[in-house]
């Protein structure tokens, strides 16, 4: 669960809205301890990241950064607390994508407005760390990069075919997904297979050969198929 939460999370450090004009405390910020709201219970991913960051910030600023766990309602209780706090830059909340992007659609009475009440500070965690999150070794991570290098053009070529087939259709986007998803599977299987082979310490050559064969096939045939599809669509 913690892993899943980490993957989906775009850590959003949101200082409470409309900070006072910077000049007022630019020289001396922070002059007092900072309250850091972690809207999830102790021991979870948000809490661990909060505590690690709070420690470093406290060292850098020479002021205490107090982590305050305020769990409940999928994090919205903590976010609401931060939104109501004085907008002086001394209350920070570590939120998730869900708190600012999904919650407004999910709750009929959300006690904060993500756009008006919160000021985003920075992204803490983001996608490029996927491989490290899965604890892939250096070899496996390199294999991942190489298989992406070979596999991505295949997916792009198939995507082009799908786009040509669904050109100008009603709900073409949904159709595109349904059509392209099964066609992408072989490339995904061999790409993922190469990474797990590298992780297991066995040869990845077979997977790379098949991936390369798929790429050659796709480069040779996909443009022709896409051309045919465009001709069919525009006839």
């Amino acid at each position, binding site marked *: 669960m913690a892993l899943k939460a980490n993957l989906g999370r775009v850590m959003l450090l949101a200082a409470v809205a409309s900070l006072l004009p910077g000049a007022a405390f630019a020289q001396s910020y922070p002059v007092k301890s900072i309250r850091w709201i972690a809207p999830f219970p102790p021991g979870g991913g948000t809490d661990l990241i909060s505590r690690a960051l709070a420690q470093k910030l406290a060292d850098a600023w020479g002021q205490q950064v107090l982590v305050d766990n305020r769990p409940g309602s999928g994090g919205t209780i903590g976010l609401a607390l931060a939104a109501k706090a004085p907008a002086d830059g001394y209350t920070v909340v570590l939120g998730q994508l869900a708190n600012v992007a999904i919650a407004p659609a999910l709750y009929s009475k959300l006690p904060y407005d993500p756009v008006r009440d919160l000021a985003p500070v920075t992204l803490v965690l983001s996608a490029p760390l996927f491989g490290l999150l899965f604890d892939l070794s250096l070899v496996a991570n390199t294999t991942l990069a190489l298989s992406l290098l070979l596999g991505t053009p295949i997916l792009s070529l198939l995507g082009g*075919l799908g786009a040509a*087939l*669904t050109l100008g*259709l*009603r*709900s*073409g986007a949904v*159709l595109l997904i*349904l*059509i392209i*998803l*099964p*066609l992408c*599977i*072989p490339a995904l*299987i061999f790409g993922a297979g190469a990474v797990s082979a590298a992780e297991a310490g066995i040869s990845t050559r077979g997977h790379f050969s098949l991936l390369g064969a798929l790429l050659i096939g796709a480069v040779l045939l996909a443009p022709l*198929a896409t051309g*045919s*599809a465009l001709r*069919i*669509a525009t*006839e």
Partner: protein
Amino acid sequence: MEGRLRLFTFASPPRFYALTGVLIPWLWIVCLALTAVGLYIGFFVAPTDATQGESYRVIFIHVPAAWMSMLLYLVMAFWAAIGWAFNARLASMVARAIAPTGAMFTFLALWTGAFWGKPTWGTWWVWDARLTSELILLFLYLGYLALVNAIDDTRRADQAGALLAVVGAVNIPIIYFSVKWWNTLHQGATISMTAAPKMAHTMLTAMLLMTFAFWAYAFAVVFMRTRAIVIEREQQTEWVSALVRTQGSKS
């Protein structure tokens, strides 16, 4: 010309319509008879499996359904390609008529597999190579159906569907060989054309009878569906009007 059969005799929709009208009742009879005998042998005559107990009996439906699911996709892609390449109207109609039946057999194979997997593997579903690729096959059918139904222009729908079906056919060998290539949970084929059967003869008989029953069913249903498509697409023609007059006077 009169009375002589040529290769393309039944590529003509009226002749196809007349022929299948005669064949369909027989196909249903064959299908029901084979199903009755096949299920009887499968459920009452075939011995209990030494390791799997009674649960193995689902293979009498599962294996033929899985075969049909892959075969029908290739047949569909073949007729769709013929229809596209030679502008053969009936071939495109047959391709469209096959897709729902193929999707049904794919679903049946997955569903019965889940029923068998629960008591035998202890799980309804695993992300095993063959199971996953069979699921992908279902999505291929659904993608084909969604695409041809989303396009209003018949000609464009047939051609786009043919292109997609042919591209998707690349996946069939992957599904078929997935068990060999990845050596995963789903066992390899027990039956082979080149070796003596490794199962009791009654089991094999029941499975083959069920396979032929499914063939008969597939032919019957595909013909019925094709007839409906033929009537719909050819409703402006003389022969359909004549047909409606004679049918109408009968009822």
